[in-house]
């Protein structure tokens, strides 16, 4: 505690002058320290300011979004309307019995390729045969009667010349001959009718084609009356017709001669071309659709009648229309728009109207110029006039 006393003495002896003197000496180091401190602070502050400014620049730089650009392009690829259809034969005949009788034999089964006139089956017609015999006899009888009448008439005509008979009698005989003549004709016609009916006992193919159905068998009774079921079906499939029910909504876009193609499940990978031949020109009440017919040759017989067909109509498009990726569209309260990057790298929104939608692509009817730099996948935060930069690789889009 000695030093304490010493300092106390010092303090006590310190005159009012002393402090000033001390301060003059002691002030310098303190001032110097303060100056150094101030310099340090100033330096640090400036450094931080600089860092802040750099950061500010960096942030602002980052705040300008990068966008990827797609160019509108033209494309003549048609829009496809795909609808289910069914394949029908070019001609399709259902062959029914025209005579009553029992099937004696059938010679062609389903799938058989037949020529016109080929016998498909034969029908035993006992009743018809009887009637045929009867008719033949009737004809003979009529002919006999006619012969008698002719002789009689001739005779009476000669007698008339000798005026042995009255003119009345002679005329009667002549007339009788004519009647008998007519009866012969009738009997002959009846025989012919029955004969030709007898011909129907042979069921023949009406045209070149394929037997697509057979419902009779040997011994089964067939008759024209009970002919709800056809005996055979014969289809001509050298060409096929495809019928498509086009819903009303699309009906206006179908026209005669329009190109179309179809596929069938049994021929995967094979596409058949078939132009639109005609339409029913009426919307079916029950189906609500327009029946459209397409034809296509079927030389190899690949297309089977009754098949299901996936028909693709090629709806014509305006090849001058611009197309862009569907991912470039923004749809919202302002309608459908595309965002483009103008010459000053700023975002401009252009309202567009879609002419056709191809799924991953759309055709634009109006509102887009071919040189426009359209932003792909525009963020929904982009606004008119925003500055953007065009980025490197295009972003992955949903395009396949």
């Amino acid at each position: 505690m000695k030093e304490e006393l010493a300092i106390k003495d010092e303090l006590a002896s310190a005159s009012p002058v002393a402090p000033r003197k001390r301060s003059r000496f002691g002030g310098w180091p303190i001032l110097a320290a303060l100056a150094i401190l101030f310099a340090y602070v100033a330096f640090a502050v400036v450094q931080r300011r600089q860092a802040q400014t750099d950061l500010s620049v960096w942030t602002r730089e980052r705040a300008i979004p990068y966008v990827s650009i797609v160019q509108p392009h033209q494309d003549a690829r048609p829009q496809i309307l795909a609808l289910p259809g069914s394949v029908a034969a070019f001609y399709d005949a259902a062959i029914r019995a025209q005579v009553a009788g029992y099937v004696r034999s059938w010679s062609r089964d389903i799938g058989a390729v037949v020529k016109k006139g080929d016998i498909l089956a034969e029908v035993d017609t006992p009743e018809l045969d009887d009637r045929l015999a009867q008719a033949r006899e009737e004809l003979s009888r009529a002919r006999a009667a006619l012969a008698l009448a002719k002789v009689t008439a001739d005779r009476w005509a000669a007698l008339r010349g000798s005026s042995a008979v009255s003119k009345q009698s002679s005329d009667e005989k002549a007339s009788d001959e004519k009647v008998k003549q007519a009866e012969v004709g009738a009997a002959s016609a009846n025989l012919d009718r029955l004969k030709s009916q007898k011909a129907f006992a042979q069921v023949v193919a009406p045209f070149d084609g394929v037997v697509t159905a057979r419902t009779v068998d040997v011994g089964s009774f067939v008759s024209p009356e009970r002919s709800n079921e056809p005996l055979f079906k014969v289809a001509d499939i050298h060409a096929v017709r495809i019928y498509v029910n086009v819903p009303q909504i699309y009906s206006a876009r179908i026209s005669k001669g329009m190109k179309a193609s179809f596929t069938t499940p049994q021929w995967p990978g094979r596409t058949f071309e078939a132009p639109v031949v005609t339409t029913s020109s009426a919307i079916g009440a029950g189906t609500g659709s327009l029946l459209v017919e397409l034809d296509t040759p079927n030389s190899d017989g690949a297309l089977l009648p009754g098949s299901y067909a996936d028909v693709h109509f090629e709806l014509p498009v305006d090849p001058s229309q611009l197309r862009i990726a569907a991912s470039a569209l923004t749809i919202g309260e302002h309608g459908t728009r595309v965002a483009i990057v103008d010459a000053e790298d700023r975002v401009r929104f252009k309202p567009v109207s879609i002419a056709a939608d191809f799924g991953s692509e759309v055709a634009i009817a109006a509102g887009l110029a071919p040189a426009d730099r359209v932003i792909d996948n525009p963020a929904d935060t982009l606004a008119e006039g925003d500055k953007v930069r065009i980025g490197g690789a295009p972003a992955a889009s949903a395009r396949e």
Partner: protein
Amino acid sequence: MLALVRIALNRPYTFVVMAMLIVIFGVIAWIRTPTDIFPAIRIPVVAVVWTYNGLPPDDMSGRIVYYYERAVSSAVNDIEHMESQSLSGYGVVKIFFQPTVDINAALAQIGAVSQTVLKQLPPGITPPYVLTFNASSVPVIQLALSSETISEAKIFDAAQNQIRPQLATVAGAAVPSPYGGKVRQVQIDVDQAKLRSYGLSAQDVVAAVGQQDLIIPVGAQKIGGKEYVIQLNDSPERIEEMGYLPIRSVDGATVRIGDVAHVHDSYPPQTNIVRVDGVNAVLMTIVKAGSASTLDVINGVKGLLPRLREILPPEIKLVAVGDQSGFVQNAVSSVIFEGALAATLTGLMILVFLGSWRSTVIIIVSIPLAIFGSIAGLAATGENINVMTLGGLALAVGILVDDATVTIENINFQLEQKKEIESAIMDGARQIVIPATVSLLCICIVFVPMFGLGGISGYLFRPMAKAVIFALVGSYILSRTLVPTMANYLLGGHVHDHDSPPRGFFGRFQRGFERRFEAARQAYARLLGAAMLLRWKFVIAFLGFCLASFALFPLLGQNFFPNIEGVQLKLHVRGPTGLRIEETGRLVKRVETAIGEVAGPKVVASMVDNIGLPVSGTSMAYNNTGTIGAADADILITLEEGQEKTSEALVERLREKLPQSFPGVTFAFLPADIVTQILNFGLPAPIDVQVIGSDTTANRAHAARLLRRIAQVTGVADARIQQPGDAPTIRVDVDRLQASRLGFSMKDIATSMQITLAGSIQTNPVFWLNPKNGVSYPVVTQTPQYWMESLDDLARIPASQGKSPQLLGGVAQISRESSNAVVSHYSVQPVIDIYASNTGRDLGAVSADIERVIAALDAEKPRGSLVVLRGQTVTMASAYSQLYQGLALAVVLIYLLIVVNFQSWIDPFVIITALPAALAGVVWMLFATHTTLSVPALTGAIMCMGVATANSILVVSFAREQLAEGLEPFAAALNAGIGRFRPVLMTALAMIIGMGPMALSAEQNAPLGRAVIGGLIFATVATLIFVPVVFAMAHSRKPRAEAFQPLAASEMSS
């Protein structure tokens, strides 16, 4: 108090046993207490997950979530707020509660209301999952399963049905459904073309399955003496048999399911892909739930790994990724190391100062005892061992030595007066009992405001305050009990230890130190004398300097918690809205390549992608990355060990490069470390600007305006809108009249479309039991997505059953529009979130700028809408204001305490005047070390207040004694300064040295250490120079105050 000392002397074994008990209980507590990164944050959150397959977000929001939220808000008590996300097919409602909630009652209410609303919701909906978790429920480890030979569906199946039940046995592990892979189910792939060719619709197929695959128990029959179980083949035994089920007969030909569909053991369309280093995998995320320790959960899971590998087929590779235990362990062990280092350094310092190894031993023994006592106390009050409590203990080490040192110093002083050892101890104890108690109270008082902290910071800092207070109280008690006991043994025989000539190297060193210290004290005395002569100038200059220092305060910046660098980065990638998952997968692959290029070789150790939405809604509840659909992906990038330092630069480069290379893609770096994830409380970003209101369109426009401005705020990165409104949407407008004219209704159309596009499972759930493994799999009728690839395919969906088949396109207009990809609600109101992070600038400044942006655009905001800044910013602001208030309150409380102690209004004020210097020191230190202000730094500042006050009290009380002895004020103050120079310096040095390792570390609590060091350096200067000068001035001006002196002084020494 003195009675205790007497016991220590008379019955010495008492406190030796006490010390042993402390050690025993401390060690037991140390072993038993779970170790974790943070204290348990018991803010309960309940997540309710609704699932309805294929329901778009807008409908999910309107038809399910809204309704449910309203019901919940009226039926459940103590809700703080609710958040919800309506995604495609999922609705996740998170209910946050007041801290006072009875969570079990709330859960019961939630369960009840979930049942009540069910009738009002869409048909076929199942009751929701209800999950409870809290803020610290974050992923702690992930298991990745991959295989080169086994299909993803089978891996997923193994993960879901074999591994998950095993993991559920690990205490505290919550295991949501796996990510990635494919869910096994029986898939009936309907071929639309075949349907059309038979004139059937998908409904027919579903109806056929429903009628042919049944679960109808048919009963039993008693025949003769037996009762027979009747078994009907009402459900196919093999999957292939499903294909033989008849649909209907057309023209005598029977159409079977197999004719129009492909039945196979398969999986639904994938919505979630996980890749571990490029290989498709299944990822199981293990989330810590409840109060279990992170380390226990991880160790439990790791312990199960060998067993799990045995269960799995050998082809499946099982690896653990994203292991947080290393991080936790590192954090904890580095804090322990810092603490130990601090204790050692402090011990050395004491040895140097006291020059007596005996005294030093006494002090050093009391440090671990106090810490063990604190740990036992913490364990008893339900706290775990974590970075915060350990930080508190490290903080306490510096003060701990103080009590013991002062006691020993005093005993030594008494011994030097040639007293007997026992009376020396008693007298020494008597002298310091009041100052020691007051300084203990001072330090405890500054920590009191910590207990008032709300929210996350409260949960974090209360245990820290507890740790400090327990340790201090422990050390206070020890210094009255064990220290006297030990002093009695160790110092008794060495009365003249101090005066005996020192020997050896240490002795020489000690002598040298003493000499230099004496010189320093002389210099100090001269300085103090000079300051007293120049008193006015000095006081004004000093105060001016301190106040001027506060000018640096705004330059510091404010963060909630300091950023720490780790080897993990998490990158959130969001492709253009509506991007399909396959494309997102491709995009992510390219992004990974780009990352590899930017990072360069040997930087990235591994990358794990998690693409798209998880298959299970429960995983959505745990998701904190903001994934909303197939266009979203998270990439977890793990850098090679030792690359922590480069991570920040890498992030910056990636932020420059990635957006340029991938225009239209949004990138955001998410917190990968467990700490920030906890602090963000489920949000993927620290800044969340919400536009709340029902006019969604206008709000969206306003959010876009805000975003544009916010993105330009200096230091903002990754600004983005969470809810994209441009999800590509195809609108199908059915002409109902036309349809009805053709004989079918909207229901036919909707059902057909649902079955075709979304699958039948939601409205016609059918299950098939696999007799082989006993698992029931759903049977789903659907058209494979790859068969529906164009607008035409959509238009050609058969819309009606029966005679005249109609196609959808025949009765409907198909057009494009856009819709919401996600609908979020905040407290039952639609909300649009703008997320942003700060980089290179403190959160406080960035937030303030964003607030300005919000204010500037306030006029343009839609009527009735609200723009609110939430997220970490808000938590930070409230923590700061609470801490500032706490600080002010602490100063007032300390002042009042000293008023009571000194029975004077002026002397306490003299003491308080030292505090600005402490704060100035904090500011200077933080400024010089480029440390932003943060909650740990503020805690440090508070701590400084306590220590600075305690030291000042020491000086002032000595000065008052001198004054009472009749010395004039200046001499008294001078004597006090010189007399207390040593203990004050020792206390301060102990603290500073103790905080040194922490301050130099790169850990969470480094700012705390820095603040304490800076604050104490200045506070010590103030205590030793400024306070005596002010004291002297105060007393020389106010002689009247001396009337109180004798009374107070006599009390002081009693």
